[in-house]
């Protein structure tokens, strides 16, 4: 299975945590160290995870790019806005309320989540609907583990997700011109939610999630466009009917509920056949596009979920 390929990125290419921490010590003065940490996220701290077999055989995007080039409209619509405008966001303490059609509805805090669910590192491709892509080393646990804990009822067919609303900490949620309705909502069919690839991520690059990447917990569905990966989740609800999803509600002819990566089904206004891998260009050159793969390269694992469905209709 393509899943079990060894990573091409050599471990030696990744700066070990101790080493770059010791570089900071070399700088001496605590002030310098504080100044350095402040440019990253105030909340990112080391997060241990066991390696997993889920890793793509491609060069990992630099942490710098993955944490400064984000779509997270709650902090602004520019790609650099989330990193710049999220310093005031407090991802801890945090709780997620899991309810709806389940036997054991419950509210779980982040501490319990980090304690009860074994964290693993998974290197996934990430394909944005805007035709760019990254390769990201996530840390997290399968959503199915959380679903098992709340015991969905037989009538549950879908899982609905909701992002936090905090206009005081999320500048994109206030002001007179807002592109989206808050809270941001997303949904999956229950079998998609239970798929082993579906991850609830709590970290990346060996650390807890920075605010701009959806701290403290977010969804990752690597075969779908990035906007399905709802961030800063506070609520998960099992439902019988297909739940609304933010982009679908805004422009249903452009963004479907499924949003599976599909080079054959274009966005009405632009092509989805190719993508630009972030970080591939050196300066302005060598950043030509690469072909987008069906289901973002995860077809072997997930195509079965959609057997018999017309993917042009259910885009």
């Amino acid at each position, binding site marked *: 299975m393509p899943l079990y390929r060894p990573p091409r990125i050599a471990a030696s290419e990744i700066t070990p945590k101790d080493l770059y921490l010791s570089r900071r010590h070399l700088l001496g003065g605590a002030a310098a160290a504080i100044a350095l940490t402040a440019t990253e996220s105030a909340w990112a701290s080391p997060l241990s995870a066991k390696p997993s077999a889920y890793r793509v055989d491609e060069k990992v995007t630099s942490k710098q790019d993955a944490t400064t080039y984000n779509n997270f409209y709650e902090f602004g619509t520019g790609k650099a806005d989330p990193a710049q405008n999220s310093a005031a966001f407090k991802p801890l303490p945090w709780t997620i309320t899991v309810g709806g059609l389940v036997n054991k509805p419950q509210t779980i805090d982040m501490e319990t989540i980090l304690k009860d669910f074994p964290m693993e590192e998974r290197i996934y491709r990430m394909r944005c609907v805007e035709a760019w892509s990254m390769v990201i080393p996530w840390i997290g646990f399968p959503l199915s583990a959380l679903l098992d804990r709340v015991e969905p009822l037989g009538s549950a067919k879908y899982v609905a997700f909701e992002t936090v609303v905090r206009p005081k900490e999320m500048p994109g949620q206030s002001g007179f011109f807002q592109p989206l309705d808050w809270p941001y909502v997303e949904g999956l069919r229950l079998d998609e939610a239970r798929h082993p690839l579906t991850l609830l991520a709590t970290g990346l690059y060996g650390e807890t999630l920075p605010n701009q990447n959806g701290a403290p917990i977010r969804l990752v569905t690597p075969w779908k466009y990035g906007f399905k990966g709802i961030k800063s989740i506070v609520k998960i609800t099992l439902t019988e009917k297909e739940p609304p999803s933010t982009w679908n509600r805004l422009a249903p002819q452009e963004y479907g509920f499924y949003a599976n990566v599909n080079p054959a089904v274009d966005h009405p*206004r632009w092509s989805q056949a190719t993508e630009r891998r972030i970080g591939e260009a050196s300066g302005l050159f060598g950043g030509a596009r690469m072909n987008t793969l069906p289901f973002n390269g995860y077809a072997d694992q997930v195509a079965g979920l959609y057997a018999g469905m017309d993917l042009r209709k259910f885009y």
Partner: protein
Amino acid sequence: MATFAVPPRYRAASVWALYALGLLPGFYAFYLGIYGGLGADPVREFEHRLGFWALRFLCLGLAVTPLRDLFGTNLIAYRRALGLIAFYYVLAHFAVYLTLDRGLILSSILGDILKRPYIMLGMAGLLMLIPLALTSNRWSIRKLGSRWNTLHKLAYPILLAAVLHYVLSIKSITLEPVIYLAIVTALVGYRVVRPRIMDWKRGRRLLAR
């Protein structure tokens, strides 16, 4: 009518200064791109910056007439430069799209042009700009006479195509495209009411005699 406060002997120099100043943001973006200063997706950022500067200079070029009519500021001596700077940005924007962005893969480029309304609008804008750039010299003005004025009314559809090209290429409507749409609407809309404004002004001048 007040003229812009540049003495005639410096006028030529000030036009050249405008070319230099106007093209500077493009060269600066190129410099940033080469040295990694355009963020995680430098090609897209460079392409977009060139497009924005084209749109801005198109707006500036079409602001000359209303500024003269309504505020008595005469910048007509700079209008050709504004238009040509816009044209150079459009050419650069298109060249980056063809090469750095699409890697000169003609099948994908042709598919784009034939299928995507926003690309078609951009292409239409570029094609309409070409005759204007080619006739932006004194000889053409003399040769074409009043037809020159008619031909250069293409500037209005060009500006509309440019702003729609931008608005249709983005994922959601934010404040920035709304501002550009408002500016373009004002500039093009002004041309609709202009005859009446000029009549009214002429009437007042006659009364004042």
